[in-house]
């Protein structure tokens, strides 16, 4: 278990003047790397932020931290240059990064540059006698597939929220990485507007419990019922595409084929018919409960408990019942 596994940890975009934190998924990729080898981190961000970010990386389990300073306004190419340099330096058995915009962009560029095998949107990494392999859940969770590299390091992007293991904190061993810029043209980030207010609810991607609402909620105002139920359960809020299209909630909360794929302990669907593209993103949940007034709604085909009835009656009663049980 001493083979180095390189992880790519990026500074998240930050508002003018604010110090960036590590982008989402850092703890997960280090946790995944620790399961199959020795986690090494490449931390990429603006020069001034690197010491603090490197320290965070070590606290999340990176046994060795390489830092590369980049102009974060330049998108794609500079991060790929740093990652290619780190791969040359570390000669890792595998390279892991979150399946985020920036993670996927870097993975794609480096895979073609090095002609390296690429496994996208993995939900787990494992080791067998031959080496590291990536596990995938494809076609909306209908199939489990595993892939491995035929030659060279396996580059894999990891679905956010899919790995629970966390590596133990270590003392930081940090050094700066020399990066030769390829000078490849890059798109430019002109400005960044932080999201109005970070929600205090759990993050949809990694939540253990999710309450999702659909078109059945009828309006943005009435969607608050879903939020109240989520809060009573300590759950994250999700939504169907129809609810997103109708403007009830932000697109980042969409669950399904073209939204987020989730696999929580509990998925409670309210006013969601259960179209195949919605089920594709949630049918691997451990327990599914559905509330819908149409007894023929396909969501009932996969529900462990299905309730046919009016959500506007049931949800407020359920919130009250949960509060009462809490005492």
């Amino acid at each position: 278990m001493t083979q180095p596994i390189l992880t790519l940890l990026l500074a998240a975009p930050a508002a003018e003047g604010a110090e960036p934190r590590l982008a989402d998924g850092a703890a997960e990729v280090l946790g995944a790397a620790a399961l199959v080898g020795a986690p090494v981190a490449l931390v990429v961000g603006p020069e001034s932020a690197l010491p603090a970010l490197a320290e965070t990386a070590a606290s999340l389990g990176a046994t060795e931290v390489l830092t590369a300073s980049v102009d974060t306004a330049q998108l794609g190419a500079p991060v790929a240059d740093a990652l290619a340099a780190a791969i040359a330096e570390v000669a890792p058995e595998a390279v892991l990064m979150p399946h985020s915009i920036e993670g996927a962009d870097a993975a794609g560029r480096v895979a073609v540059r090095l002609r390296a095998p690429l496994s996208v949107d993995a939900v787990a990494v494992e080791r067998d006698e031959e080496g590291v392999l990536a596990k995938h859940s494809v076609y909306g969770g209908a199939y489990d597939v595993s892939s491995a590299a035929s030659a060279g390091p396996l580059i894999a992007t990891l679905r956010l929220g899919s790995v629970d293991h966390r590596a133990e904190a270590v003392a930081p061993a940090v050094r700066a990485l020399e990066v030769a810029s390829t000078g490849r043209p890059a798109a430019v980030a002109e400005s960044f507007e932080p999201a109005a207010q970070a929600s205090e609810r759990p993050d949809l991607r990694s939540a253990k419990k999710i309450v999702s609402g659909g078109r059945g909620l009828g309006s943005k105002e009435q969607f608050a019922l879903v939020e109240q139920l989520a809060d009573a359960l300590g759950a994250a809020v999700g939504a169907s595409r129809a609810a997103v299209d109708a403007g009830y909630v932000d697109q980042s909360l969409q669950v399904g084929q073209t939204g987020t794929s989730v696999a929580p302990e509990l998925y409670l669907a309210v006013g969601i018919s259960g179209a195949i593209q919605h089920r594709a993103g949630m049918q691997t949940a451990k327990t599914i409960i559905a509330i819908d007034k149409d007894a023929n709604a396909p969501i009932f085909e996969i529900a462990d408990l299905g309730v046919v009835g009016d959500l506007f009656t049931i949800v407020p009663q359920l919130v009250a019942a949960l509060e009462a049980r809490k005492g």
Partner: protein
Amino acid sequence: MKIVVLVKPVPDTFGDRVLSLETGLADRAASETVLDEITERALETVIRHAEASGDVEVVAMTMAPAESQSTLRKALAMGAAAAVHIADERLAGADLVRTAQVLAAALRRAGADLVVTGNGSTDGSGGVMPSMLAELLELPAATRLETIEITADAVRGTRETDGGTQAVTAPLPAIVSITERMPDPRFPALKGIMGAKKKPLEVLSLDDLAGELEGIGAPLEETEEPRSIMLAAAQRPPREAGEIITDDGTAAERIAAFLADRRLA
């Protein structure tokens, strides 16, 4: 200005999609093939721009099995002026790197000021194709745009990233990918369907692209071997329905008890 939209035929998500457990490849005969909706949105976005600004040639391009050609006719019917279909039996089971090399070669041959793709497909869902193409073609890439504005010499837009909204821009030539926030695709009108039959649809084999593949440093022989190998594919047992009750005034209590039983509340 020439804009190439990369469109992808995929198994219809409205049906049950089948993966061959032996090869790990999509069983194309098992599902109906349709244009991936996200690539129709990309096409819609570009056609709207062409209609508004004039002097824009819209080309739809795909790398897909020969049988899926009808999907390119649909792209022409929606309003693309021409289509390019890369079809070659040697491409069956192509992985991401190889797909990128072949598409990059064809894009080089076509010569585009702007390349527009979807942010991720409903089958492979890689979401990496645009950045791979940008790397091979040495173009700037602005990925996952939720809004887009195309001018004579640049493309700009916004995207949702960790914790906020980023405004991005790239000088042309460039490559961009768009998300589901873009407008719904139009249904081709009868006139469009009739007109599509007369529009040029070019079919290319790998040999037709030999020169360009060489040019991007991926000669024909080298594009042959897959780089990641699928080790195993297993089908999950379908989920079974549990208990279905009709609310008689006690359903909320029933749910609360069910949650408590399973230690979920």
